[in-house]
């Protein structure tokens, strides 16, 4: 999985998590932990062809389309290359939800 995708995914997912209240209704406490779940990797399992075909930064996005929606809604890290060129979703998976 390209580094830029992982960076964008965990950044936006963490901001989304911070924006939602905890089960007790309180604000979330920020921390350094980030995570990615197995289902967030759909499209990239055993996708070694991606590594063969192009540089990581030139690889098309082939994961779930909702991942791009979350990134659009919650932003990107500073200086992230997607700020200049956001990936197209024409090869994305259009099923499933976060």
């Amino acid at each position, binding site marked *: 999985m*390209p*580094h830029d995708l992982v960076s964008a995914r965990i950044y936006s997912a963490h901001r989304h998590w911070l924006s939602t209240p905890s089960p007790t209704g309180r604000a979330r406490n920020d921390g350094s932990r980030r*995570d*990615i779940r197995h289902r967030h990797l759909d499209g990239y*399992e055993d*996708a070694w062809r991606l590594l063969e075909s192009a540089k990581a930064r030139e690889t098309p996005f082939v994961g779930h389309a909702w991942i791009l929606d979350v990134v659009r809604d919650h932003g990107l890290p500073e200086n992230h290359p997607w700020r200049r060129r956001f990936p197209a979703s024409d090869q994305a998976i259009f099923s499933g939800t976060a």
Partner: protein
Amino acid sequence: MRQLWKLGNGSIDRGAQPLKEWGIGQVRRSNSQVQRRLRETVPHLLPAAASDRLAQRKVGRTLAPRVARDRHDKNARATDVLAQRLDLAQPRIVSIQTKTTSAGNDNFALTAGDEETAPHDDQWFVFVGLAIRRNGRDSGSCRTTSCPPGSTQPTATG
């Protein structure tokens, strides 16, 4: 004729290798299962041992230059494996960072530091989910059917 680096047992040998192969230039993390799975899953990766010498002098500084914190600090940032491929018209060097989960764990743990933008345009993450197969049945997160009975085998996601 170009030659790929062949690494083994920490020493460097410049023997000729078949084309279409990746040479591992640096393996920072001593997770032998991950590295074994990388080699099994990607036949282009040479079955090579870590070579700090090559990574330091030939590959590491080129890919991810950094300032060493102390004299023991000699690794490339965000890099567990450096693989280089020299048989292309434009030789490629890729940086791979591996993340592993234990059997039955759905989450790959990362940190805020992983949000940083990649300094190089060919940096990848490889996520490896470990699973245990007991009595012919998978447990945990194994998604393949190739796990030998009684052994722990990872599944890899590139």
